[in-house]
């Protein structure tokens, strides 16, 4: 993690995150916006891999990039014509949103540089094996997460049923 190569990789990934998230919110074609979101999510997965959370990176690619973006693309194709451009924004609204985002960025960046910048040098970490992750996910003890795991599974079931009920055609 301390070689020149990883530094170059870092700059590529950080640059990709910034560029693709800007493009995702500024492009006028909604399908392109979803594609840029996909690239931003991939770059985030690369950050997870760089930090040593391989399992999380795989989940990010499988669920976010594989599942959610496909859902986006399907719903875009269902609700708009492929060649559609978004109407240009009212410049007042755009200025307002831009100022809000910039102000937030400046304030938060100042707070981060002021308060968090002393966290240097990634500490050594033993590799999180699938065995360890599985035990933490399936145990009920300290630092183990069976209850949220089950709650999420119930939530997903409710979400499947809710999605079907809301989106189905009503022919009565």
């Amino acid at each position, binding site marked *: 993690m301390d070689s020149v190569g990883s530094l170059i990789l870092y700059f590529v990934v950080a640059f990709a995150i910034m560029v693709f*998230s*800007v493009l995702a919110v500024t492009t006028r074609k909604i399908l392109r916006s979803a594609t840029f979101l996909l690239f931003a999510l991939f770059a985030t997965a690369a950050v997870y891999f760089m930090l040593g959370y391989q399992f999380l990176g795989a989940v990010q690619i499988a669920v976010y990039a594989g599942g959610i973006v496909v859902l986006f693309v399907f719903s875009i194709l269902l609700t708009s014509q492929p060649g559609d451009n978004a109407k240009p924004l009212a410049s007042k609204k755009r200025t307002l949103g831009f100022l809000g985002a910039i102000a937030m*960025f400046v304030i938060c960046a100042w707070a981060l540089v002021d308060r968090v*910048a002393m966290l240097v040098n990634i500490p050594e970490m033993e590799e*999180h094996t699938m065995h*360890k992750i599985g035990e933490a996910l399936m145990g009920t003890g300290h630092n183990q997460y069976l209850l949220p795991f089950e709650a999420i599974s119930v*939530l997903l079931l409710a979400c499947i049923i809710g999605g079907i009920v*809301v989106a189905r055609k009503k022919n009565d």
Partner: protein
Amino acid sequence: MNFEFEWNSIMFLIPSLFMFCCGVYGFLTRRNMIAILISLELMLNAVDMNFVVFNRFLYPGQLDGMFFTLFAIAIAAAETAIAIAIIINAFRISRDIDVKDLSKMKF
């Protein structure tokens, strides 16, 4: 070759903050409901990244941040599915998903 270099948490937190602010900008300015949802995903993703970075820098022996991110990803997936179901339903009712035109639910 002598190459001294220190990783700083800022190096990961600033891109994440930038992503979040892009999400805020998109959320405030876009009018297509799916575009708003995409901005929301950007914000959620930025927050997930922060969990992981702080976990890695502060408590490398524990997995709490990683599991929070894992559950946040699952909740984001559920939320997106429901939101898209609602958007498709709204599209069926008014043939349009521009938030300016969706005034039928106003009371």
